[in-house]
């Protein structure tokens, strides 16, 4: 995501222009060069024109150094020009009024030029610095929006900051107690925190103000630190390390670091808010699901119990008065409703396991036909009258799955099909495989599902809302089915059929076939 913000965008700040001894040496050298040129040119040019050579030297020095070095150069050239070239030569006295004017004007022009040139150079430098700062900040901003978690935000920040500030940069975060600071991210090196650094971090965090080297607070620290605070929320500190210096970073670095700190703080704050929102959303959804499940449980579990208690109570009170046929019916009802209750409980257990992410797959090699057979057999036991037309592959199709879970998923589909099918119409189960996938198609002759609802039948809320309002629903069956198959990397979808029923298709990936000794 962040690749488009290319590395080239962030350059180091332009090197600070020379002052110091080096600058004076440079100025002296430039002056000496001007004198060499002037001595050569002296044969061909008038004395007045030689001033142009010195002026060039002054300008050359002025654009690359500070004002006072430029003035030094101007004065040096003025003196040398006067001494070596204006008659009488090798004295500081000047004969003609013209030459006095030339030399005097030279000094004035040289001083004015050097002032203008240094100002211009300053401006260019500050523009470049601003541009570098802006592009570093832009890159940081772009990359921070791409990354979501805190560790990634820290890493991106220190990487860009270290490059732009040309110094080891780190984000320090507090680990619980005071003075327990941890380097959350750093670039290009990982600094070790000494007690001064820890104290500086404490100051910085507590006072919400810069601390460390160059400040009044823990000034002996290796790092200069600024807080990463948003309102009352503390996200740690940004630290600029320097192994040698105990001085404040220069103002460019400070300003840039402060801008970085603001940007990262905003990003951290945004992440925190997003996480809080997500948590609230999940909690809301969990709450909704819990309520839906509770209402489902109270209905789905209670209605079989009502039948069972009612039937058993009737038998126990009126056993002798009832004709054998009615007694039989009541007894069958108790068994059937008990089995229904057992299936609901199984589905609820599966649901809870899926919901809590506690579903562990105990994978094993299994022939797809055996899974289909087991599910079909369960359905036959439950609906002995239901016709089932099964087409299984002739060759074994080995899957690497948790057999009981896939069987449960297929059983839920079959039960749903039996639920909507008229008993005389068969349910078709077609198991087929190509090289990559296994497909199990279950087709019923029920009323079908309107296209708009085809996806929704797998939705937990939908299933729960529709629930088992009918006499023999599968409740959470289909949404659990999708969950179980999804856990195996497969999918379940509802498709229309030519004759108006519904086709539920389960697809599972086929693994590399293992070697077999048969």
């Amino acid at each position, binding site marked *: 995501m962040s690749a488009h913000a290319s590395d080239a965008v962030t350059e180091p700040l332009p090197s600070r222009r020379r002052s110091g001894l080096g600058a004076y040496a440079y100025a002296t050298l430039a002056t000496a060069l001007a004198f060499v040129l002037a001595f050569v040119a002296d044969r061909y040019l008038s004395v007045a024109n030689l001033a142009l050579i010195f002026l060039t030297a002054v300008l050359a020095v002025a654009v690359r150094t500070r004002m006072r070095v430029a003035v030094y150069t101007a004065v040096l050239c003025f003196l040398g020009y006067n001494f070596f070239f204006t008659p009488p030569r090798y004295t500081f006295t000047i004969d003609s009024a013209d030459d006095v004017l030339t030399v005097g004007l030279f000094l004035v022009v040289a001083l004015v030029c050097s002032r203008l040139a240094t100002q211009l150079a300053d401006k260019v430098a500050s523009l470049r610095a601003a541009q570098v700062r802006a592009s570093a900040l832009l890159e940081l901003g772009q990359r921070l929006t791409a990354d979501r978690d805190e560790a990634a935000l820290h890493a991106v920040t220190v990487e860009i900051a270290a490059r732009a500030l040309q110094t080891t940069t780190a984000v320090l975060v507090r680990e619980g107690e005071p003075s327990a600071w941890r380097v959350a991210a750093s670039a290009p090196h990982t600094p070790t925190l000494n007690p001064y650094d820890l104290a500086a971090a404490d100051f910085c965090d507590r006072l919400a103000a810069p601390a460390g080297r160059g400040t009044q607070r823990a000034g002996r620290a290796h790092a200069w630190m600024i807080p990463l605070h948003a309102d009352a929320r503390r996200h740690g500190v940004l630290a600029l390390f320097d192994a040698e210096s105990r001085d404040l970073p220069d103002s460019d670095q400070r300003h840039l670091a402060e801008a970085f700190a603001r940007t990262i703080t905003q990003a951290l704050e945004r992440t925190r808010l997003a996480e809080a929102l997500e948590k609230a959303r999940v909690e809301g959804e969990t709450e909704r699901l819990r309520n839906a499940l509770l209402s489902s449980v109270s209905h789905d579990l209670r209605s079989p119990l009502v039948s069972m208690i009612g039937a058993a109570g009737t038998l126990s009170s009126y056993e002798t008065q009832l004709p054998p046929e009615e007694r039989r019916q009541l007894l069958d009802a108790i*068994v059937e409703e*008990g*089995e229904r209750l*057992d299936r609901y409980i*199984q589905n609820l*257990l599966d649901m809870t396991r899926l919901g809590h992410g506690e579903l562990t797959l*105990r994978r*094993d*090699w*299994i*022939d797809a*036909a*055996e*899974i*289909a*057979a*087991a599910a*079909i*057999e369960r359905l036959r036991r439950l609906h002995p009258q239901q016709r*089932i037309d*099964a087409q*299984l592959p*002739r*060759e*074994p199709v*080995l899957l690497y799955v948790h*057999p*009981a879970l896939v*069987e449960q998923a297929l059983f839920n589909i079959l039960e749903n099909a039996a639920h909507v099918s008229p008993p005389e119409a068969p349910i078709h189960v077609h198991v087929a495989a190509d090289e990559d996938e296994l497909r199990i198609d279950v087709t019923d002759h029920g009323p079908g599902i309107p296209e708009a609802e085809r996806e929704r039948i797998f939705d937990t809320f939908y299933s729960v809302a529709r629930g088992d309002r009918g006499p023999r629903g599968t409740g959470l069956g289909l949404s659990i089915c999708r969950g179980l198959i999804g856990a195996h990397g497969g999918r379940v979808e509802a498709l229309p059929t030519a004759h108006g029923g519904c086709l539920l298709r389960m697809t599972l990936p086929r693994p590399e076939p*293992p070697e*077999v*000794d*048969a």
Partner: protein
Amino acid sequence: MNAASPRILVIDDEPQIRRFLDIGLRAEGYQVLQAANAEEGLALAATQAPDLVILDLGLPDREGHEVLRELRQWSRVPVLMLSVRDAESEKVRALDLGANDYVTKPFGIQELMARLRALLRDRLVAEDPETAPLYDDGRLRIDRLRREVHLDGVEVALTRKEYAVLSMLLAHAGRVVPQPLLLRKIWGPTHAQDTHYLRIVIARLRQKLGDDAAAPRWLKTEPGVGYRFIDAPQT
């Protein structure tokens, strides 16, 4: 009560389950002994010499597997476990420890009775089922001396592994044979986890015998646990 009728010991901590088992078993003509925990159960097994034990794996005082292990140290009485769904590995472990079969709770009384009959029949016929040399149900004929299999009078060519699996299942006809046991006995101890070997052999056997996995005549899958040879069509 007939003195010759088999005595069945029920070890289960749930009084309601014991009660309906008691009623059902007595209705089938068995004598019933009841125990509410492992200690009582082991004591009754030792003193009353039951013909069969129905053992719940979830007992309050001791783990069912431990009871089984102790029982097997001094008794070969057939044991039928009561287990819950989703505990396939537990069932396999119990079968390995010497349980003879299992039913999954909740179970129908008819299913339980069918399993009991199979276990008691084996006990009556022979202590060691390996001795029956010939199986013939009219369609399938397995001659274990000549190692020949005929289906509807036509010889079926089986590989050595296929024959070995069929023969081992037949030796325990009517009872579940756990898959790790099949793998250990036929492919060797290092292959106890290579279930895919077994899946392929079973699929090929079904293919050759024309058996339908979804409505098996002979080779029944017990999901997650093993396979069962159906010697008589189930009612």
